[in-house]
């Protein structure tokens, strides 16, 4: 009974969140000083052609009618056609979102695997050399323009050393070799059992993913450190130490367990922001992800694409929230 009510509540909040998100995006899109009709008819169009397209796009109707019409179509699973790519939005999203998911997941994985231990050790050895290094790493991560770092990375690891693949998701000869199952090339090439394609895809993703990983590492390690410092000065830690527990058990067994809940929130947020797509990284690495897709659509006033992208990103955020909610309950018995 309680579970049913909770699920219903969750479903309702999901729907309301998405509805609000869509409404706001829609209104912003319509008041933006960008004319989507020009994108469709081109700059040479006469007024008559322009007017015809204006009407065909339904722009002559009041905003609320346009919104209702859009919602009705979305409810039938039709996200419409993008005017900046000429393809159905759903088809575009199926292509660009996996590219971003692949990159964001690997990036977050790197960020977590390096950032969390770094933060914990930095807190445990506060003021020590690891702490200093962690601080510099985080500072650089916060302040370096990703655009520059990406280009330099390409120049060094691709241009000079030749260790990684260049811009793009795949080398030319592997393009289209692996059948699309999930859209994640790393996964698809494994499914197909094509190791060469996997290695190629990996050599292309490793640099941008490391770069994104570095930025989320900077954030995650700083947050981990401050959470840990708070715990390490708590009385139960003193008690544990007085009882003679090893430092390792104090840190990992007691203090670390207690920061898991806030840490998960931090990681989920960081993952969520990467799922929106990192536009600059995508541009530098010619990565056809959702960040570039939405940005380009926005600049063209291509609202179908923007709204479709918003739904996907919004749903991801809600889902991540839900997931971290469930994890809280698993990790912290006090949470109800």
């Amino acid at each position, binding site marked *: 009974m309680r579970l049913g009510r909770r699920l219903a509540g969750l479903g309702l909040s999901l729907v309301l969140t998405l509805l609000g998100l869509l409404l706001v995006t829609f209104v912003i899109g319509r008041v933006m000083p960008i*004319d989507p009709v*020009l994108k469709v008819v081109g700059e040479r169009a006469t007024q008559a052609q322009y007017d015809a397209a204006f009407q065909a796009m339904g722009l002559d109707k009041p905003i609320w009618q346009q919104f209702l019409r859009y919602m009705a179509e979305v409810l039938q699973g039709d996200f419409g*056609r993008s005017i900046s790519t000429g393809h159905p939005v759903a088809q575009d999203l199926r*292509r660009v979102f996996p590219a971003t998911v692949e990159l964001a997941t690997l990036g977050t994985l790197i960020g977590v695997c390096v950032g969390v231990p770094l933060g914990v050790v930095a807190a445990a050895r506060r003021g020590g050399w690891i702490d200093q290094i962690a601080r510099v790493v985080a500072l650089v991560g916060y302040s370096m323009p990703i655009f520059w770092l990406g280009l330099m990375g390409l*120049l060094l690891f*691709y241009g000079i050393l030749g260790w990684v693949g260049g811009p*793009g998701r795949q080398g*030319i000869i592997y393009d289209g070799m692996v059948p699309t199952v999930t859209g994640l090339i790393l996964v698809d090439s494994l499914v197909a059992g094509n190791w060469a394609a996997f290695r190629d895809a990996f050599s292309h993703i490793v640099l941008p993913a490391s770069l994104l990983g570095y930025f989320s590492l900077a954030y995650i390690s700083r947050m981990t450190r401050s959470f840990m410092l708070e715990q390490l000065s708590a009385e139960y830690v003193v008690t544990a130490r007085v009882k003679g527990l090893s430092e390792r058990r104090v840190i990992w067994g007691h203090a670390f367990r207690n920061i898991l809940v806030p840490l998960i929130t931090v990681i989920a947020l960081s993952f969520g922001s990467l799922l929106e797509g990192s536009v600059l990284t995508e541009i530098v690495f*010619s990565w056809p992800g959702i960040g570039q897709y939405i940005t380009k659509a926005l600049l063209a006033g291509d609202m179908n694409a923007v709204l479709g992208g918003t739904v996907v990103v919004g749903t991801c955020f809600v889902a991540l929230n839900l997931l971290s909610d469930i994890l809280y309950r698993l990790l912290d018995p006090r949470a109800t």
Partner: protein
Amino acid sequence: MQNRFPLRVLMLASAVMLAPASATWAETPADTLVIAHQIDDIISLDPGQSFEFSGQDVVRNLYDRLVDIDPLDLAAGIKPSLAESWEVSEDGRTITLTMREGVTFHSGNPVRAEDAAWSLQRAVKLNKSPAFILNQFGFTAENVDERVTFDGNRLVLQLDQPYAQSYVLNCLASEVGSVVDKETVMAHAEGEDFGNAWLSTNDAGSGPFTLAAWRPNEAVQLTANPDYWQGAPAMARVIVRHVQESSAQRLLLEQGDVDVARNLTPTDVEGIAGNDRLKVMDELRGRILYMGLSQKDPLLSRPEMVEAMKYLIDYAGMESSFLKGQWKVHQNFLPEGYLGASDENPWTYDIEKARQILSDAGITSGTVKTVVRDIREYVDAAQTLQAAMAQVGLTLEIQQMTGAQVLDAYRARQVPIFIGEWGPDYADPHTNASTFAHNPNNADDAGLSQLAWRNSWAVPDEMNRAVEAATLEGDTDKRVQMYLDIQKQYREIAPIIPMFQKIEQVAMQQNVQNWTSGGSVSSVLYRQVTKE
């Protein structure tokens, strides 16, 4: 993101530091041409709709037209393609084209006169951006079924006026004249769309290549048509990859992962100069960089002001600095390579002369505004002009906007000084004459889109009539002379000042041969490209 100067300095400095280490060098497959290019402007591959640079690059290679222009041999003029021959009736109003026998579409269907007629009818009825090219001959959605007909293997065009044969054929050689496979397209029609939704992302042509894939903002892949009637292309595959950044294109080229890079900045072009595996080809394109002076502005509408502005532009200075290698001075509205193009460039940067003209007219001070797109070249050009104008007591206010915003304001006739580009729409001089030098109705609500109208320039009747007459002149030599005369008068009075013509610098591996980006009149062609 347009202004990446500090970034480039850092990049270059770092490159110099790291340069001694040598990299591994890959090579693309011998039968595959790989191109790095910005192709995010494509919104459709339907020849009845496509009107963007990169889209036309694709369409040109998927379809054949009735007649064609070879950008590698411009002097040859119009050549037969799917139409083997043509003849014009006595009164000049009927053109009959005889179709080539034995050509098939990619689907295997034969190319018939019926397909050719239907393709033109379809483009007119779709009424998308390029439809106006056909509308010029009096074809409308209502009458096109009677005016464009076929009889056996002959296509018959009935024009509303006895247009110059060169004018009609030049227009048919543009992408909107592509012959489309009627059966295939109609099988995919939805409602009244003539298959537009389907054809936007598919191909139904008879051209040297077929469309293997188009992933927007990512890649276009073409596969050679082995049965092509003019012989199979040398390249079995052509892959165009969307690479936004010049630096990334350069890296890919230097690593041998692409054969051709089409959007290198002058800095990157210079950067690869010492690399003997690579070469750079300069190709003159059709785009004109011009300055429009709105005749609504009280100051700019004075003829002396227009005259003085021509001497306040530092043509040579800009050509040798920030436009270096990418634009050349060209002070006529017809680009070099077009029928009737003029190579007279009478104006030079001359502050004293401008000051004299202005003081004779009693203009010693004043303020005007320019609205420019946030592209480095335009902003630099505006600033150069600002400095020159300051020397004669004039103040130029520069406002930067995104491309879409500038275009909105320009189309609403609200830009006092416009600095920007114009690309010809088809391979006939009328394309630019009709926009720079023709404006029969200067009213605000005329609903036109010509450059003359956008700059509120009421073109003198005499010039309007001359532009119209030039489309009817059957004798090509006389027609050329007419355009030369129009341009002469234009140079004297027009407030829309052509300044530069585009040079495309294409960087490629040494082994790439016979590359053409399409010259000033056309789009890229891959059929003749080889790798040795």
